[in-house]
C-alpha cells in the first residue's frame, strides 16, 4: 500500500514547489544595494544644465530616487501616482533621467506633468550601471545618512506605496540613524525584495 502512496507524495511536493513558483517574479532580482550607501554621482540638472545635482546634496533627508526615461512605457504607468505623491508632499522625489535625450525628457515632463523636485541627467547610463539598474522604472528609497533602504523594481503601485514605501519613509523620518531591525520588519510588507 505504502509503495503506491510514494508517487502521490512526490507529486504533491512537486506541486507545492510549482504552485509557489507561479507567484514568483523572475524579474525581481534581490538588490545587493539594500542597507548599502547609495553610489555617489554628480550629474547635470535637467532644468539647469549648467549646474549639477549630487546624491550628497540630499544628506539629512529621506528621499526617493526614481529612475525613468521618456522612452520607458512602464514609467507612464506609475507617473500619475508620482504626481499625486508630489501634490501631497509625501516624500521628495528626485529623478534620474536614464539614457534619454534631455529635450525628450523635458518634453515628456511638459506633457505628463513633473513630480520631480530635481532631475539628474544620466545621458550615458553610467550612473544607472553604478546603481545596478536593469529595467526602468526603478525607485530607490534613500535615508538621511545616504543609505539605500529599499528598492522598487518596475512601476510603483499605490498598494506598494501604502503598505511598503510610506511606512519605511515614516520610520526613517522619525530618527536620525535608521533602525535596521525595524526597517527589515517593515520591508516584509513589500512585494519586491
Amino acid at each position, binding site marked *: 500500500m505504502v509503495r503506491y502512496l510514494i508517487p502521490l507524495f512526490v507529486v504533491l511536493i512537486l506541486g507545492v514547489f510549482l504552485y509557489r513558483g507561479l507567484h514568483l517574479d*523572475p*524579474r525581481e*532580482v*534581490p*538588490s*545587493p*544595494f539594500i542597507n548599502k550607501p547609495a553610489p555617489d554621482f554628480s550629474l547635470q540638472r535637467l532644468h539647469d544644465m549648467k549646474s549639477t545635482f549630487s546624491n550628497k546634496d540630499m544628506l539629512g533627508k529621506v528621499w526617493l530616487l526614481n529612475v525613468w526615461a521618456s522612452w520607458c512605457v512602464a514609467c507612464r504607468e506609475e507617473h500619475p501616482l508620482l504626481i499625486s505623491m508630489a501634490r501631497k508632499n509625501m516624500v521628495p522625489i528626485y529623478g534620474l533621467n536614464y*539614457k534619454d535625450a534631455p529635450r525628450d525628457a523635458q518634453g515628456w515632463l511638459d506633457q505628463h506633468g513633473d513630480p520631480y523636485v530635481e532631475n539628474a541627467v544620466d545621458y550615458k*547610463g553610467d550612473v544607472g*550601471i*553604478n*546603481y*545596478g539598474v*536593469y*529595467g526602468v522604472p526603478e525607485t530607490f528609497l534613500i535615508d538621511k545618512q545616504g543609505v539605500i533602504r529599499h528598492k522598487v523594481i518596475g512601476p510603483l503601485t499605490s498598494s506598494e506605496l501604502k503598505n511598503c514605501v510610506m511606512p519605511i519613509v515614516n520610520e526613517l523620518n522619525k530618527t536620525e540613524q535608521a533602525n535596521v531591525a525595524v526597517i527589515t520588519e517593515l520591508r516584509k510588507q513589500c512585494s519586491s525584495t
Partner: protein
Amino acid sequence: MFIDVKIKQTITVLLLLLGLLPHLASAKEAVPLASDTKLEKRVDDITSELRCLVCQNQTIADSHAELAIDLKNQVRGMVAKGQTQDQIVDYMVKRYGDFVRYRPAMKPTTYLLWGGPFILLVLGMVVLILNLKKRKIIIQDSPLSEQETAQLDTLLHADSGAVSGGEGKPS
C-alpha cells in the same frame, strides 16, 4: 554562329569582372569593435560568465539588449585598464547581485544547488541496488513439483486441443 555567341559571352563576363576591380580593391574586412583581438577575446570570456538581466537566459556576450551592450563596453574598459576577471565579476555582483553570475558562486546558500544532483544520483543508485536485490530473490529458480508438472501438462494439452477443435473466431 555558336562560337560567336560564346566569344560575346566571354567578353561580357570579362568586362563585368573588370567593372568589379575597383570595388574589390576598396573592400575592407569588417573592423572589429576593438582593434585588439586579444582584448576582445578576454572581454568575450568574461561576459560569457555574466547574465544579461534584461533577457535572463542569455549571457551578456550573447545578448543584444542595450544594457548588455553597455555592460560589455564597461567590461571592455575594465579589461583595458588591466583588471582581472575576479575584479570585474565582483564589480558586477556588487551592482546586480549574485544572479548576474551565470555560474552560481559556491557558498552556503548554493550548496544544495551544487550538491543536489549528486545527492539525487546517490539516492537513485541506492533505490536501484535495493530493487535489483529484491528482484534476485523473486526470480530465483524454484523447480516445479511433480504435481505442478502434471497440472502444467494437462493445461498445455487441453489448450492445444481447444485450438485444433477450431471454434475460435477467425483472426
